[in-house]
C-alpha cells in the first residue's frame, strides 16, 4: 500500500472501529435476537422464530403503532405551521438581530429534552400554571396532560428547530426579486405564499418534515412524562420490554420495525437535503 493509503487507513481506523464495535455489531445483535424465541427463565433461547413479529399484529400493539404514527404526523404538521413564518423571517433578516435569533432557536434544541419537558409539566401539570389560573378564575382544574394533544405540544416545541433550519436554507435560495415581482404584479401576501414561496421552498419543507417525523416517532421521554399510561408510543414499548418485562426478543423486534421505518424516512431526508444543497450551489 502506498504511504498515502496507509495514512488514510490510520486516520480513519479509530472512527471506523468505534462505529463497528458500538453501532454495527450491537444493531446486528438486535436483528438476530428479534428472531430468537422468548424464554421466561433465560430471556431468550437461540431457536429461530418469527413469533415476535407476529405478536406485533395484536390489536394492542397495532394501537400503539397507530398512536405513534398519529403523534408523528400531528407533530410534523404543527412544526410546519409554526416553523414556516419563523423560517421566512430568519431567511429574510439582514440585521444584527439575526445572530441573536439563531442563538435563541438553537439553544433550546441543545438543552436536554427532559428539562424542556419538565418546563411543560410545570406549565400544564395538575398544580401547574394554567390550572392555577383556571382555579383563580373560578373554573375547576383540568387534566391537561395524559392526552395526545399534550404529547404533540411537547414534541412540537422540542423539534421545531429541526423544521426551521432546512426550511430557512430553502427560503434563502429564493431570490428576493422573485418575491418583489409577484408583489408588484399585485399578489396578496396569501397568493405570494401559495403560488411563489411554497412551491419554491418545498424541498426545505419536505426535508424538515421528514426529519421532524423520524425523530418524533422514536420519542420516549415526552410520551413517558406527558402522556403517562394513556398515550403510549413504540419507544415506550421498547423501554418497558427491555428494562421491565425483560422480553428482549419482542423488544428487539419492535426496535427493528422502528429502525426500518425511521431509516427509510431518514434516507429520504438525506436525499432531499442533497438535492437542496445542489440547487443552492447553482443559485
Amino acid at each position: 500500500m502506498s504511504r498515502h493509503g496507509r495514512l488514510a487507513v490510520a486516520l480513519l481506523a479509530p472512527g471506523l472501529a468505534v462505529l463497528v464495535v458500538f453501532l454495527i455489531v450491537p444493531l446486528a445483535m438486535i436483528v438476530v435476537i428479534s428472531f430468537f424465541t422468548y424464554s421466561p427463565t433465560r430471556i431468550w433461547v437461540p431457536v429461530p422464530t418469527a413469533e415476535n413479529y407476529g405478536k406485533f399484529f395484536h390489536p394492542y400493539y397495532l394501537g400503539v403503532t397507530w398512536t405513534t404514527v398519529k403523534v408523528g404526523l400531528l407533530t410534523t404538521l404543527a412544526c410546519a405551521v409554526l416553523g414556516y413564518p419563523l423560517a421566512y423571517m430568519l431567511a429574510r433578516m439582514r440585521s444584527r438581530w439575526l445572530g441573536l435569533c439563531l442563538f435563541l432557536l438553537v439553544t433550546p434544541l441543545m438543552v436536554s429534552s427532559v428539562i424542556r419537558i419538565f418546563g411543560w409539566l410545570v406549565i400544564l401539570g395538575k398544580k401547574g400554571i394554567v390550572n392555577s389560573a383556571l382555579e383563580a378564575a373560578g373554573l375547576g382544574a383540568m387534566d391537561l396532560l395524559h392526552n395526545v394533544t399534550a404529547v404533540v405540544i411537547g414534541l412540537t416545541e422540542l423539534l421545531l428547530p429541526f423544521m426551521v433550519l432546512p426550511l430557512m436554507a430553502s427560503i434563502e435560495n429564493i431570490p428576493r426579486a422573485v418575491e418583489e415581482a409577484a408583489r408588484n404584479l399585485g399578489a396578496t401576501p396569501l397568493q405570494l405564499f401559495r403560488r411563489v414561496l411554497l412551491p419554491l421552498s418545498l424541498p426545505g419543507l419536505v426535508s424538515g418534515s421528514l426529519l421532524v417525523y423520524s425523530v418524533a416517532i422514536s420519542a420516549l421521554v415526552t410520551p413517558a412524562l406527558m402522556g403517562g399510561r394513556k398515550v403510549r408510543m413504540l419507544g415506550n414499548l421498547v423501554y418497558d420490554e427491555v428494562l421491565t418485562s425483560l422480553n428482549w426478543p419482542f423488544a428487539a423486534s419492535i426496535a427493528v420495525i422502528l429502525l426500518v421505518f425511521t431509516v427509510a424516512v431518514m434516507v429520504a431526508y438525506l436525499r432531499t437535503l442533497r438535492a437542496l444543497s445542489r440547487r443552492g450551489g447553482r443559485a
Partner: protein
Amino acid sequence: MAVGGEAVRRPSRPFNAWWILITVVVVIYLFLLAPLLIVVAVSFDPTDAFRFPPPGFSLRWYVAFFTSETFMKAFFRVSLLVALTVAVLATVIGGMAAVGLVRFLTRGRALLETLFLTPIVVPEILLGAALFLYYTRLKVSTSVAGLIAGHLLLAIPYVVRTVSAGLIGIDRSLEEAAMSLGASRAQAFWKVTMPLIRSSLLSAAIFAFIVSFSDINVALFVAGPESMTLPVHIFSQIVWQPDPTIAAASTLQILLIAALLAIAQRVFRLRVAL
C-alpha cells in the same frame, strides 16, 4: 384610475404584513422558549409550589442542589466527566476521520462519509437499547465507560461534519506553498492547515460536549446506578419526587449550554454543524 388607486395603497400593504409577521414570530419564540423560561423562574421560587411568576426570590433550591450528594455526583462526577471525555475523544477521532475523508480519499469517500453519519439516522433510543443488550450480553457492567462509548456515537457525526466543512473551505495550495518552501508534509499540515481549522475543531468539541451533556435517550438505557447522569437523575426525580431542586439543576445546565453556544457562535457558523 384603478392603477392609480393601487399605487397609493401598495406601499402600506407589505408594511402591515411585515408587522403581522413579526408579531406571529414573537409568539412562536415565546412558545419555543416558554419551558426554559418557566424552569429558570421556578428555580428562584422560595416555595415549592411551582408558581409563576414566583412570589419572591430565593436561592434555597440552589443550596439544596449543591448540598445534595446525588445531584452533585450526577452533575460533576458523571455528566461533566463523561461530556469532557467525549468532547476530547470525539474531536480527536472525528477530526482524524474528517482529515482522512477530505484529504486522502477519492474512491469510496461518499460511502465512508455516509457510514460516519449513520449514527444520526438511527433513533437514539434504539442506540441505547442496542447498547444495553450488547453490554449485558458481553457481561460488561453498565459503567461510565459504556456511557462514553454511546455518547461518542452521537457526537462523532457532528464532529466529522463540522471539521469536514472547515477543511473543504481551505485552499490546498497553501500547504503546497509551505512545502515548496521546504516544510515537510506533516509540518505543512500542522503549521498551515491546523491553525485554519482551529475554529471548526473548537466548535466540534463544544457540540460533542453538549450532545453528551444533554443526552437522555441513550443514558436512560445505558446508565447504571453508578453512572447516573444529570438528565437521567432529573428524569427519575420528576417521576418520584418533583421539587424545584430539579429546576435549579436545569437552570445550571441551561446556562452552561447557552454560554458554550455563544462561544461556538463567535468562532463558527452554528448552522454548519446542524
